[in-house]
């Protein structure tokens, strides 16, 4: 990968953009959040509003017509969206991961550059089919293989989850490089909507992140061999997909946690107004959770700025080292644990008001979404990977 120094939007411009994100989130995203959650339906209104702001192409470099934001700014947008609706934020975050794979590893292909220009013009939404029936959550192993003949590829993949698969414009899938390739010799391919079909194999009726519509499908795709990324998936994963995923997910989880603490603060303030000279007990709990939230925030902030610097330096070795993978995993482990802790504390502060679905201090959806964090990829799997990798590390 070439060193990537994303220009990033200037501070003022980005600040204005964030204001707009808050605005559409209040007006559109939040207005449909309860429906989306209750019915486990795709948040078309919210995603539509993001498209109007051209946010789907926010990470595409400006020379291809995108906003050219950097990863720190993308993470911030995910955080803001997380404050309003975890599902909208998750869909946006997952889309950004796919865009990042193309921006970091696909710019060497003129076909993929053209695709990114179309993504900008049409605000195309990209979904991801990485997991597979038979391999569980092991991203570095594929059963299905791509078959390339005369410049055209064919692929059939049984994916247990493709988030918003039925609503995406395009899908990026991982698979073995060829019919004879070992399970870990993988490539990534971009499948276009007009040349793939999706056969539903399972639904999505879950505790949280209900609007992500992460149903399972059999994906049958074909297309030009140019749509297969030339860089091995192992590199795409270690340099982009792995760190980018945990950064944007951590950020949206931070947004959910932040909103929960905002609810708690509002509740404590109301209690305090009733008895101005006697601080309510809950104010002590607010002080505690404020500290925990700061820890979550700072952990993510360091990881994001480090990653931006590593992208600019372009040193391949660091990306493929176990040290970086361990730190990235640690970010996920901490963020997914802290979000549950923080939302639970906020719930205790808000009490019955937080426990009700229909109160303005409701934390029900926050809590249900929060529990999903530790399961996408299961923290135990991640912990085991770290346990193995740590055997090679000397002092930190």
């Amino acid at each position, binding site marked *: 990968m070439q060193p990537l120094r994303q220009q990033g939007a200037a501070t003022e411009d980005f600040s204005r953009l964030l204001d707009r994100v808050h605005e559409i989130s209040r007006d559109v995203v939040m207005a449909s959040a309860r429906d989306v959650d209750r019915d486990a339906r795709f948040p078309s209104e919210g995603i539509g509003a993001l498209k109007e702001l051209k946010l789907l192409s926010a990470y595409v470099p400006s020379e291809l017509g995108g906003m050219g934001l950097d990863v720190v700014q993308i993470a911030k947008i995910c955080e803001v969206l997380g404050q309003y609706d975890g599902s909208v934020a998750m869909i946006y975050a997952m889309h950004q991961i796919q865009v990042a794979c193309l921006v970091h590893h696909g710019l060497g292909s003129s076909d993929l550059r053209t695709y990114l220009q179309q993504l900008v013009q049409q605000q195309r939404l990209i979904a991801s089919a990485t997991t597979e029936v038979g391999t569980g959550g092991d991203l*570095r192993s594929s059963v299905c293989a791509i078959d390339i003949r005369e410049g055209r590829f064919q692929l059939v993949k049984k994916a247990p989850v493709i988030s918003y698969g039925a609503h995406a414009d395009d899908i990026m899938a991982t698979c073995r490089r060829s019919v004879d390739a*070992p*399970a*870990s*010799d993988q490539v990534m391919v971009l499948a276009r909507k007009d040349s793939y079909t999706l056969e539903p194999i399972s639904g999505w009726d879950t505790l949280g992140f209900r609007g992500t519509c992460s149903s399972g499908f059999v994906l049958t795709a074909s297309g030009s061999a140019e749509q297969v990324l030339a860089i091995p998936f*192992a590199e795409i994963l270690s340099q982009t997909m792995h760190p980018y995923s945990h950064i944007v997910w951590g950020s949206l989880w931070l947004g959910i946690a932040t909103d929960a603490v905002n609810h708690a603060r509002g509740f404590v303030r109301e209690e305090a107004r009733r008895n101005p000279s006697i601080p309510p007990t809950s104010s002590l709990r607010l002080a505690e959770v404020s500290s925990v939230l700061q820890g979550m925030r700072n952990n993510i902030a360091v990881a994001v700025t480090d990653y931006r610097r590593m992208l600019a330096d372009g040193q391949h*070795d660091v990306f*493929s*080292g*176990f040290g970086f993978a361990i730190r990235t995993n640690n970010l996920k482990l901490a963020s997914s644990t802290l979000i549950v802790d923080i939302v639970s504390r906020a719930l205790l502060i808000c009490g019955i008001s937080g426990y009700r679905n229909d109160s303005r201090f409701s934390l029900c959806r926050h809590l249900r979404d929060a529990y999903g964090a530790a399961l996408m990829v299961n923290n135990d799997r991640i912990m085991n*990977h770290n346990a*193995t*990798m740590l*055997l*090679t590390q*000397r002092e930190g």
Partner: protein
Amino acid sequence: MYADKVRDILTQHGRLSSPVDQLQDTSDLYNAGLTSLATVGLMLALEDQFNIEFPDNMLSRKTFASIEFIVDAVQKLVDK
């Protein structure tokens, strides 16, 4: 001399998709199914077998890219 032992260890711990005796000394092990997580087990077995310790700067993807590279690394560490 080390190549045979290294091949044994690869057979036991490499979790490759092709039999080790079908691989040349210069064959790319990652193309033969070696994953980065499997290199950890390889490293530990090599350290145990040859009574060596891999320093950080020798623990890159390249070190385990082929039998030849592994033998080179082991040679360097045994001679220390």
